[in-house]
């Protein structure tokens, strides 16, 4: 093979898909998936509820209750499918858009809203949920996942029932970051139990995938020496099956996998973004036909696994959760001013004490004037 013959080769490989956009269940020889009726209904409920949470957060931002929100609209299947593949021993390293995975890990969505409201910078206990803090600087968390996986190796648990794996979430834009490539190297040479779960939603704010890569992203893995697979990111079944396999490989000492979940960011990058400036409405319409929730609903109806009453009850539950979230979000108290100085260091720190005391005295001086 010569350099010239490599150029402009068409992309290889297909998309792993177990549920078509029309809601037809299809098999894939490498990814058998046996789901009970209850499992399917559960996945459907998850998808609907996280969309309801997300929609409410967007509304709260429009109403001034949140400073910003990064909507997951369109990526529900990628997040619920991969999130439901996790066990309690696994550790998630998310970006700032993994609201569906957070939901799967039992993180109260109010905590996500608190961060975007400006109450704190995150504020959940990663160990309690197996869900690390949202990471805003693009790609940094992939190294944390690789390092955490190196820790799992050193704990000597791989191959045992208590083995966990790390899973790093990131987007197509992040694959251009040095940290992501370094994480691939570390994970590869140490054969660390980590799954790199890339949600390729086609857009890094306004920049299309073509600005990040000339080859399909899953094929990057080959160059680093571990498997890469592309899955239909709008197919919750396929995302579940593929992630489950990748995690199991990691937990049994077979090293990292790159999963490229091929999806689409139906909303804006964040609530401050305006996609009409850089992409066509027709593209959005085309992807709307591949909606991750509609196809499960069609499958449920087609297969008789759920009736209208079930579907209606899930819709109602979504409305209730959103209403409850709205109430609790508005009731979130502003943090105390002293919180600025708290938890900067784990052990006492003279400068923090000095500045906190001076600030408290300064604030108190106003109270005295009023009195």
């Amino acid at each position, binding site marked *: 093979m010569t350099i010239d013959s490599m150029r402009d080769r068409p992309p290889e490989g297909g998309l792993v898909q177990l549920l078509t956009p029309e809601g037809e269940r299809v098999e894939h020889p490498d990814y058998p998936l046996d789901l009970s009726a209850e499992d399917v209904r559960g996945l459907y409920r998850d998808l609907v509820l996280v969309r309801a949470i997300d929609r409410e957060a967007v509304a709260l931002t429009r109403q001034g209750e949140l400073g910003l929100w990064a909507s997951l609209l369109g990526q529900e299947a990628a997040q619920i499918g991969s999130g439901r593949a996790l066990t309690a021993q696994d550790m998630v390293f998310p970006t700032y858009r993994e609201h569906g995975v957070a939901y799967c890990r039992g993180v109260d969505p109010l905590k996500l809203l608190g961060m975007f409201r400006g109450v704190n*910078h995150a504020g*959940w206990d990663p160990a309690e949920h197996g869900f690390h803090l949202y*990471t805003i600087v693009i790609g940094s968390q992939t190294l944390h996942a690789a390092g955490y996986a190196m*820790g799992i190796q050193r704990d000597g648990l791989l191959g045992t029932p208590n083995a966990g794996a790390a899973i790093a979430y990131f987007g197509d834009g992040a694959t251009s970051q040095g940290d992501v490539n370094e994480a691939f190297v570390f994970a590869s040479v140490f054969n660390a139990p980590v799954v790199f779960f890339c949600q390729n939603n086609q857009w890094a704010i306004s920049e299309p995938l073509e600005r990040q890569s000339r080859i399909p992203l899953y094929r990057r893995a080959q160059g680093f020496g571990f498997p890469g697979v592309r899955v239909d990111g709008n197919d919750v079944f396929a995302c579940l099956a593929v992630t489950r396999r990748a995690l199991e490989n990691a937990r049994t000492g077979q090293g990292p996998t790159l999963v490229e979940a091929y999806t689409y960011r139906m909303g804006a990058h964040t609530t401050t973004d305006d996609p009409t400036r850089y992409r066509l409405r027709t593209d959005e319409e085309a992807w709307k036909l591949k909606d991750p929730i509609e196809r499960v609903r069609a499958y449920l109806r087609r297969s008789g696994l759920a009736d209208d009453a079930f579907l209606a009850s899930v819709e109602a539950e979504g409305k209730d959760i959103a209403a409850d979230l709205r109430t609790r979000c508005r009731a979130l108290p502003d943090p105390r001013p002293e919180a600025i100085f708290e938890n900067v260091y784990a052990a006492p720190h003279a400068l923090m004490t000095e500045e906190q005391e001076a600030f408290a005295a300064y604030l108190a001086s106003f109270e005295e004037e009023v009195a």
Partner: protein
Amino acid sequence: MTTLTLGRALNEGMRRAMEDDPKVLVMGEDVGRLGGVFRVTDGLQKDFGEERVIDTPLAESGIVGTAIGLALRGYRPVCEIQFDGFVFPAADQIITQLAKMHLRSLGAVKLPVVVRIPCGGGIGAVEHHSESPEAYFAHTAGLRVVACSNAADAYTMIRRAIASPDPVIFFEPKRRYWDKAEVSTDVALSDLPDLHAAQVVQPGDDVTVLAYGPSVKTCLEAAAAAAAEGRSLEVIDLRSLNPLDVDTVEASVARTGRCVVVHEAPVFAGFGAELAARITERCFYRLEAPVLRVGGFSTPYPPSRLEDHYLPDLDRVLDAVDRTFAW
């Protein structure tokens, strides 16, 4: 007491920490089989194995980023950045991730990561091997920043740093790695001196000279030369830049009324500026002269044939001392 070089004292300190706590890891480029380019980790991989003394891929952001992940899993990584000028690829992981994670988790996450950085010039090295980047890190809330100056402190400070629940940026004066001193190696961790306490290493009455890392020895030599001329310098080894032991500094300057700050880093917006400002606030009416700073010029570090002109030496310290009296 044992006579050890500064580099060996660091080695013994890490060894002791690894013996005391199986979660302590050493990681970096060439730290394993080679024992580090300065041999500071010599023999550790042989004794503790490849799982605990990790030769990493050649990627500084990767070293610190994976160290964070290991710390999240309960380990206490000690990272070696091979040279000062190589820390910048890791700056994002240090400043944006390592320094802030405890706060972002509202205290739930602790990151006991040590980042060791050989720093400073004076070894005739090529570009990027002689820098003093301490001010960048001292400016970053969430990090503790310390600098050892001698073998005895190197041993105690590295043990204290590894035991810290907070991330510590640990500067090592590379041109002093081979300097020897008496070191007590049979001290329990709890009996070691406070990591963040400054030390008066040469008592004196006329001028307070503040230094840390490689400059401390220079200042002690300056104090000896000044003593021969009848002038008494009090030399304080700050040891810790963040937090800063301002009380020890204030007690000295309030008595002497004069202060000279010495560091290898450029003077402009350097750590000496912070010292000068704080001393001025605390000792304004007791100062006989402004706080003077002696340091590297506000230029990139020069080629090594010029570094003797760039680095503060005995004469430049004494010149500044003279100027405080001429005010």
